[in-house]
């Protein structure tokens, strides 16, 4: 069997160019971040990270919040998700680490959230100093809650407070994402899965009864 030899080939130059690109790519994901907010140029985990490892916050890119910022994050997260009958406080479940990892990540969505979060942290400390002459983290819980009461209202006219309220929503959502990632968080919200089992029974009878349902798949 013969072959047509007139086929287009890669030029030597193309091969070399490709090699250079491949070498660069093997060290860095195409996702290079160039920060606005003094974020060190970090890279993402790439399109082929080892997914079956167990990671800690900061394993892929450095955490970047200052000790001051972390103090505020910790205090705020604990007001939003305090210790109570449903479970421990946010800081005990390392929610601040998650938020730090999030705002330090080199991806577009996280970079946008970084701007929101950093501005919000500044706002909340300035406001706390204006009202109480102290940083947010050093306020009493009542004082902290009074600030959160303002931020959790929906109908602000002042554009600065509106922005801060939007920060509060973002921050709450991130904190919840972090909190409910943990075994304690699962307990708090009522998730009981991720355990292997020989059979799947479906919803318990009590649940079916409450909802007026019948299990239609009989064994």
């Amino acid at each position, binding site marked *: *069997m013969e072959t047509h030899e007139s086929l287009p080939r890669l030029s030597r130059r193309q091969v070399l160019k490709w090699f250079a690109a491949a070498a660069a790519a093997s060290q860095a994901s195409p996702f290079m971040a160039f920060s606005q907010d003094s974020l060190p140029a970090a890279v993402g985990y790439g399109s082929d990270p080892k997914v079956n490892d167990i990671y800690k916050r900061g394993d892929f890119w450095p955490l970047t919040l200052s000790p001051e910022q972390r103090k505020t994050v910790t205090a705020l997260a604990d007001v*939003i998700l305090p210790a109570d009958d449903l479970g421990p406080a946010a800081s005990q479940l390392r929610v601040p680490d998650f938020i730090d990892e999030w705002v330090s990540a080199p991806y577009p969505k996280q970079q946008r959230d970084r701007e929101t979060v950093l501005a919000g942290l500044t706002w909340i400390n300035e406001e706390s100093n204006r009202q109480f002459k102290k940083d947010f983290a050093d306020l009493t819980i009542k004082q902290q809650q009074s600030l959160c009461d303002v931020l959790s209202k929906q109908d602000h006219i002042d554009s600065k407070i509106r922005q801060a309220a939007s920060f509060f929503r973002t921050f*709450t959502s991130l904190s919840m994402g972090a909190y409910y990632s943990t*075994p304690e968080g699962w307990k708090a919200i009522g998730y009981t899965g991720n355990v292997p*089992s020989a059979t*799947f029974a479906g919803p318990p009878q009590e649940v079916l009864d409450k909802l007026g349902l019948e299990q239609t798949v009989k064994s």
Partner: protein
Amino acid sequence: MPTISVSQSKSEYDVAIVGSGAGGGQMAYTLTLAGLKCVMLEAGRSYDPVTETPMFQTADQAPLGGVSTPDKDMGFWDSTIDGGWDVPGEPYTQASTNKDQEFTWWRARMMGGRTNHWGRISLRNGPYDFKGRSRDGLGFDWPITYDEIKPYYDKVEMLIGVYGTNEGMENTPDSPPGVLQPPPKGRVGDLMTQKAGKKVCVPVVPIHRAVLTRPLDANTIPAKLHPGNKKAQKIVGDSMRARAACFWATPCGRGCSIAANYQSTTVHLPPALKTGNLDIIPNAHAREVLIGKNGKANGVLFIDKTTGKEERVKAKAVVLAASSGESVRILLNSKNDQFPDGVANSSGLVGKYIMDTVGSSLKGQIPALENLTPHNDDGAGGSHFYSPWWLYKEQLAGKLDFARGYHIEIGGTRRMPGGNSPVPGDYTRGLYGTKLKKEARRYYGSFISLACRGEMLPNDNSFAELDPTVKDKWGIPVLRWHWKWTDHELNMAMHAERTFGSIIEAMGGNVLGTPAKTGLDIIRAGGNVKHEVGGARMGEDSKDSVCNSMNQTWDVKNLFLTDAAPFVTNADKNPTLSIMAFSWRCADHIIEQARQGNL
């Protein structure tokens, strides 16, 4: 997965197979068990689900809680490696800047392709689906009937293992007795939808999915699949015994290290390799089908990605199964004196009539599900129930403003939380402290989403061609996509939206989001459901199709296409089970040709 490097390849093979997903995996399985010597070229790296799958990893153990990022479009643990909406250095382009005409292309670049993370929904096309034009005058007929392909659906289901029930519904074929595995129990969301469906006349039944709810019967199935072939029976039996039944935890999209669901890498490739008849070359990006002076295919030209060099393998027959879009691209890029417009393209139809699935969804919040007693709802890592299309008669009677059907996939309820907030912000807005935690617990698990998966009719404005200027990092021309929905698809999406609204209301629930004004508000972009099929359709006549009903190209007798490129239409039934059935049938044809010395 045992692989070879280019330098270890043999001087000639019986068959070269491009791609290791559903189509390529099935082809390699059938051919090698029958004794043919095959080489498989796979553009991605080798991948072993047994050792690489993150089964029980949780959100507190993954970067960003495992949420999706541009590096991993479907989240950290999704078993897509080096693929997704963007593949660096391998662009594709859009013919239009109009958002409504955008085509989005999900590509895999790994051993096993998209079968590592697919949803495992495995539905047979029914009799109408092959003869749509005869039935309603639209689209095209396939050159084959349901009865002709049926034995291959039976075989594929027996091999991969599919759970579900036989409901005897119109154009929703039953499987022979004993073929299906038992269905899993309904979850709360399934049973709620089923009950509400009764009120609004929408049937809800167990879905069919390629997940083992009990071990395969390794003692009897192999003899049914490979009668008279003792060696094949032994290999397949051993391979079946190595697969465990589902243990009712861990999302299937991560892959399955115990091989309880179908992946090419756990079901097709291991027995094929066991025969000793298969060499797999990973990181081998096929560029062109090589054609000899006699007009027959004699091998494949590819880029060895480990060196960047062009290489060749020789074979007596070539099978393309690189996923429909990529196989179209290879055909169009295989140009020579005999085939100036691309190999097998004398009809001019290569790249034409590409279809995706009509996708839209609606979410509801169901007060009855609030504060439910916690219970484990993980189940089989994917859907348990669905609604097959139920309005065939109304449609035929002209009562609907769209021609073809959709099925409903049910999404819900008590999924593993973490990463993103488990409750939409609207439900906890303005709250913090213990009140927030209580409300999160109240609403968690109270949401149900219903998704439309419907048939798109083939049209003249949805096709792919080579971009005249843009090339990938190896200098290979890339595809440029044209896309346009017609009123059939847009009206279908609106019908689905109204149906979903009525089901959610029948559950006493509240619909989330603002109502759509037109189908364009809700339909997902072309390609977004990742069921792109067509581009090299089969037919009765070489002037009007690219290949015959055996997936064999008219122009080059020893060139076969066994991904979804030969699909003539795209029934609402997800395509993969059909890809495998046609691939097996085509493989039997190749084996027969080889026996007769015709390769």
